């Protein structure tokens, strides 16, 4: 017979057919196959055979096989009776020791929940921008220069407009898209009489393709018309409701007129376009905004960003190599000489760096959020480890109790592998229960966690990766926490155990002690870390800012109709007593928008750089924000010459290194050769990061008409809400077209701390949980040891030991462990926190009291935890404890 049925099917049949029927059934099958092969052809017969075999997989045969096997086999690892027994024993153990079970399951669940939340957070961070199809091909153009004087390397993110044109024309084979990108900003969108404030951005055409935006209405060519703009789905819905927005006119900040030409699906929150709700065409901006138009061909005005997308077959490395020497090859001739001197190059900063590596060092992206991704990943792993250690500790501590069970099992024929399976199974059971509890905890706390971490994370129950990782997570935790007890318990010798001579020796508890030390080391490091983070925030918050920000309100006057009403408004507000002072400036007090270079002064090193932040303001500015004049005087209307005067801050005064700066001159090296006389030196104003040194700053007068920010010092005798209502009424009367938008300066200032505060809060939370989990474990361990030593304690009491004695006896061991962990944790924490703190130029010192406080805290918590059990054990009447047996 050459035509044989497939062998693998026979093997399959063999696996589930009862062995005593196998021969006759397979014979019948083969006979039928031979018959059918002749009748209908081999190929078809094979198929028939296949279906026939499948039909043999019936409960009848399986049941029969199972029954037969369990009837005759002597030791069968997966026999249902034994598995049932394992579960029964496991459940009985859980129920008998409710306290331990609670500590085990709840502690493990908490640890897993922390790890899961951190995992979701890390996933969210890492998937930033990954939603864009061209993720690997998008980059931003940066330049890189080396200062010849001090060899300082700096990067520049803003580029001149003509650079984009040259990149597009001469490097067209490398780039699919080269787009100028305007800074995003909050804009008032007016439709009819309704005003909506949305964040939006202007891109050159091509943005839809570059970011693979999904167009719900309109086409991918929606931005071909310069006047067109596209709205996000959510914005379109909130502005137009169910009405079709296509073709509707929208007025932007009361000065630009655009037409909706498309609606795109909202970009995810964790992407560069998250929070952006409309996209306009850069060409329109250029045609309608004078200063943008003015710099269209100006290589000296770097005020836009450039995003590129490389061509499909060009890698980022190739593109980078091609644009490197851009300044030498393709910039105007006047750039080539300085480019050599400054070693100027271009480079492409790929999208994957934008978010995670947003901080630059030596002109290249170096670090950023990725530090926290690492930090929290490590914390997550450690917290999970702490919970696993609890499980291991409690299981091994209880091993003496279960030693008898192991002995009996071994005596009646269990082999070691069965016992390993049993204990691993128990660990799977506990971890499985903990996993369910964990899902509950995570589900309940995710909203709150999102708020804390400023995220929009969902639990992706349907994501196969999530399910896979959860399963792996469960398995790893179960193995990790069950491995040691399983092998430890199963290695007992039955004879010794049953005879009762087993003494788990001096070293049996050594691993347990080591694990407790690890737990407390991690906890103490987290506590110290948290204290340092909070101290640093506190330190920066207490930094003198150089002005008074209380009851200071800023209004951004973007609407062109403000121009003629500014002074009237100021007059009105001062007259009706709402404000005590009002001043205008070109940028908010809490940020720096303008940096100018090209200044000269007496005794300047010709190679020294001369970049200053320049704030333009009116005469009342100093009094309104109450800056502190150190030398000289404020601007004043009494001096007609003040338009040619400048006030400098202390940082600038130090840099200029003039013996007596008052009366000296600063000149511009530009074409107009302007000259300003220094009339005053003020204390540094902290405008940007409160952790960085203040930039050298110049303050100059300018015509109020061109100053867009109004600072109002509200009359301190007036309730803020009343004052705001009055300001709004005044503005509505004078400039009805503009929505009333105000910012409290102190609020804007405190926003600078949010990211550090967030980290502080998260660190605090994790530290608390870590210490709680550790204490939970310690509590269990202490209660177990107290129980184990009941007899000893009874005898000691009979012989006259006092409660204090016993308390000391039981607590000493744990206190010693915690002290050891303190000595390990302190240098580790110091090392890491010192590294972290060095990131900030303006930082606190890590003082010794932090370590003392953390140590004392840990000790007190330990003592409280252990004492509860120790005292409970010490109070037991010795008659009771000695009576049994």
């Amino acid at each position, binding site marked *: 017979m050459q035509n044989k049925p497939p062998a693998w099917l026979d093997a399959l049949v063999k696996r589930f057919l009862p062995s005593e*029927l196998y*021969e*006759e*059934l*397979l*014979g*019948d*099958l*083969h*006979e*039928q196959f*031979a*018959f059918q092969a002749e009748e209908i052809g081999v190929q078809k017969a094979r198929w028939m055979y296949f279906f*026939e075999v499948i*039909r*043999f997989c*019936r409960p*009848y*045969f399986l049941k029969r096989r199972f029954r037969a096997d369990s009837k005759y086999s002597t030791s069968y690892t997966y026999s249902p009776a034994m598995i049932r027994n394992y579960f029964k024993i496991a459940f009985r153990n859980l129920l008998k020791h409710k306290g331990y079970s609670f500590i085990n399951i709840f502690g493990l669940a908490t640890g897993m929940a922390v790890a899961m939340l951190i995992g979701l957070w890390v996933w969210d961070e890492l998937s930033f921008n990954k939603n864009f199809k061209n993720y690997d091909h998008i980059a931003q153009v940066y330049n890189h220069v080396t200062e010849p004087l001090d060899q300082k390397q700096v990067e520049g993110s803003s580029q001149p407009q003509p650079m984009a044109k040259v990149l597009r024309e001469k490097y067209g084979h490398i780039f699919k898209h080269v787009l100028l990108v305007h800074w995003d900003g909050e804009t008032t969108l007016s439709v009819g009489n309704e005003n909506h404030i949305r964040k939006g951005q202007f891109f050159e055409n091509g943005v839809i393709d570059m970011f693979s935006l999904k167009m719900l209405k309109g086409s991918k060519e929606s931005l071909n018309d310069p006047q067109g703009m596209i709205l996000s789905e959510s914005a379109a819905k909130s502005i137009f409701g169910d009405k079709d927005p296509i073709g509707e006119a929208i007025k932007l900040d009361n000065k630009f007129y655009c037409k909706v030409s498309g609606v795109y699906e909202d970009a995810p929150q964790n992407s560069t376009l998250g929070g952006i709700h409309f996209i306009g065409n850069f060409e329109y901006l250029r045609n309608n905004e004078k200063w943008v138009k003015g710099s269209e061909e100006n290589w000296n005005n770097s005020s836009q960003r450039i995003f590129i997308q490389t061509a499909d077959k060009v890698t980022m490395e190739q593109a980078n190599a091609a644009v490197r020497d851009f300044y030498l090859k393709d910039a105007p001739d006047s750039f080539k000489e300085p480019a050599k001197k400054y070693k100027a190059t271009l480079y492409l900063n790929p999208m994957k760096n934008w978010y995670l590596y947003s901080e630059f060092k030596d002109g290249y992206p170096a670090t950023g959020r990725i530090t926290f991704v690492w930090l929290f990943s490590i914390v997550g792993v450690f917290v999970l480890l702490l919970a696993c250690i609890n499980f291991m500790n409690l299981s091994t501590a209880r091993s003496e109790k279960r030693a008898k069970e192991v002995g009996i099992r071994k005596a009646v024929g269990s082999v070691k592998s069965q016992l390993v399976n049993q204990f691993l199974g128990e660990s799977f059971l506990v971890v499985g229960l903990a996993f369910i509890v964990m899902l509950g905890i995570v589900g309940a706390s995710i909203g709150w966690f999102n708020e804390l971490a400023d995220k929009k994370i969902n639990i992706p129950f349907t994501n196969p990766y999530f399910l896979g990782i959860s399963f792996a997570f469960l398995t790893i935790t179960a193995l990790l926490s069950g491995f040691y007890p399983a092998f430890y318990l199963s290695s007992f010798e039955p004879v010794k155990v049953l005879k009762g001579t087993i003494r788990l020796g001096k070293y049996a508890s050594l691993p347990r002690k080591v694990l407790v030390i690890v737990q407390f080391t991690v906890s103490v490091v987290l506590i110290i870390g948290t204290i340092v983070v909070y101290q640093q925030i506190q330190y920066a918050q207490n930094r003198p800012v150089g002005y008074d920000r209380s009851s200071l309100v800023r209004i951004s006057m973007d609407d062109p109709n403000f121009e003629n009403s500014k002074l009237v408004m100021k007059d009105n507000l001062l007259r009706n007593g709402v404000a005590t002072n009002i001043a205008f400036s070109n940028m908010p007090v809490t940020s720096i928008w303008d940096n100018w270079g090209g200044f000269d002064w007496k005794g300047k090193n010709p190679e020294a750089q001369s970049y200053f932040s320049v704030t333009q303001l009116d005469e009342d500015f100093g009094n309104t924000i109450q800056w502190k004049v150190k030398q000289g005087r404020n601007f004043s209307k009494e001096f007609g010459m003040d338009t040619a005067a400048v006030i400098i801050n202390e940082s600038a005064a130090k840099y200029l290194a003039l013996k007596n700066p008052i009366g000296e001159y600063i000149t511009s090296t530009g074409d107009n050769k302007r000259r300003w006389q220094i009339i005053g030196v003020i204390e540094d104003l902290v405008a940007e990061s409160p952790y960085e040194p203040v930039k050298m700053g110049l303050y100059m007068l300018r015509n109020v008409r061109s100053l867009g920010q109004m600072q109002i010092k509200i009359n301190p005798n007036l309730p803020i809400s009343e004052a705001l209502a009055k300001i709004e009424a005044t503005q509505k009367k004078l400039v009805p077209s503009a929505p009333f938008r105000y910012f409290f300066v102190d609020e804007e200032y405190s926003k600078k701390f949010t990211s550090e505060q967030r980290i502080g809060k998260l660190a605090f939370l994790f530290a608390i949980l870590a210490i709680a989990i550790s204490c939970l474990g310690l509590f269990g361990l202490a209660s177990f040891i107290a129980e184990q030593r009941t007899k000893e304690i009874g005898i000691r009491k009979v012989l006259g030991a006092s409660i204090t004695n016993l308390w000391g006896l039981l607590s000493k061991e744990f206190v010693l462990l915690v002290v050891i962990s303190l000595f390990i944790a302190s240098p580790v924490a110091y090392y890491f926190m010192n590294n972290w703190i060095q990131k900030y130029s303006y930082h606190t010192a890590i003082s010794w009291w932090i370590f003392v406080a953390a140590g004392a805290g840990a000790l007190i918590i330990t003592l409280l935890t252990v004492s509860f059990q120790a005292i409970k054990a010490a109070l037991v009447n010795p008659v009771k404890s000695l009576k049994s047996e």
Partner: protein
Amino acid sequence: MGRSYLGEFEELVLLTVAVLEGTAYGVTIAAELKQRMNNRLISLSGVHIALYRLEEKGFVVSELGGATSERGGRRKRFFRITALGKRTLAEMRQVRNELWDAIPNPSFS
């Protein structure tokens, strides 16, 4: 009656065992049934399960035949109907006949 229940397919298989007198085993029973029932889909596994059940209920007995050169030398299990099986079939037939006779107008088609 304390008699075991006999399903429709089991009854057919039992009848076939009786028909094939001495040469009844899985394949032949399946082939016979298939032929007689206009190629109704008869699966080998179904036939076997019916046979084992009938054996458990005592309607058939079986014994292993000798080794054959066909089918890889595997032995066949032959089934024979028992007296109990025969009597049960006869009883069932009688019940049916009586029911047929009781139909008032037997000439319907």
